[in-house]
């Protein structure tokens, strides 16, 4: 059993510092349950990774570092796209936010915690001209 904290002291300090920039409260929802297409993830050395447990530990650890961030955990019985983290009602991340993707979780919270969009005026103008909905999926890996 792995009893190490999800975030080390230096990581906690760095994340806490970033989250101090939040301009408003951010709600985070973590959904857990059996995955529809199970895979086995192995760490260096062949140890199997408990992605559900690690995801829960990481998300809870990050959300605990700011009073502006609240976390709701939902456990599903039915298979689905879990673990799914929803930030601020609209930003989703499917999978374990470990490694480089810890940054995605933390900065996703920061983006959702802004009171003004953080894109250029040119981008805003182009988005305002959109007539149809657009879904962007970004495939990433923790390494």
């Amino acid at each position: 059993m792995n009893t190490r904290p999800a975030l080390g002291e230096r990581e906690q300090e760095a994340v806490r510092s970033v989250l101090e920039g939040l301009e408003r409260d951010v709600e985070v929802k973590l959904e857990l349950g059996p995955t529809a297409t199970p895979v086995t993830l192995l760490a260096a050395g062949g140890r199997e990774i408990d992605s559900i447990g690690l995801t829960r530990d990481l998300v809870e650890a990050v959300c605990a570092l700011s009073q502006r961030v609240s976390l709701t955990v939902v456990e599903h019985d039915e298979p689905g796209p879990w673990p799914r983290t929803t930030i601020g009602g609209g930003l989703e991340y499917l999978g374990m936010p470990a490694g480089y993707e810890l940054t995605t979780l933390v900065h996703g919270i920061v983006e959702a915690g802004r009171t003004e969009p953080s894109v250029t005026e040119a981008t805003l103008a182009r988005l305002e001209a959109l007539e149809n909905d657009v879904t962007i999926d970004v495939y990433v890996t923790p390494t």
Partner: protein
Amino acid sequence: MLLAYRLALASPRVTARGIEASEFAVDADRHGVQAVPAIVVDDRYAWAGAVPEAAFVDRVLAAAAS
């Protein structure tokens, strides 16, 4: 990933989702993902690799219109 999130926050018409490719390998394979970051727009593979904001918007809008 953050650019996609920023666009979603800037427009109610945009939805953004990050997907860990190893855990969702079936979906990644279905879209032909071979390198990351890989961007899929409206369920169709668009491109792989990081690009600046203006180019990201160009490519997303072009992919959505195709």
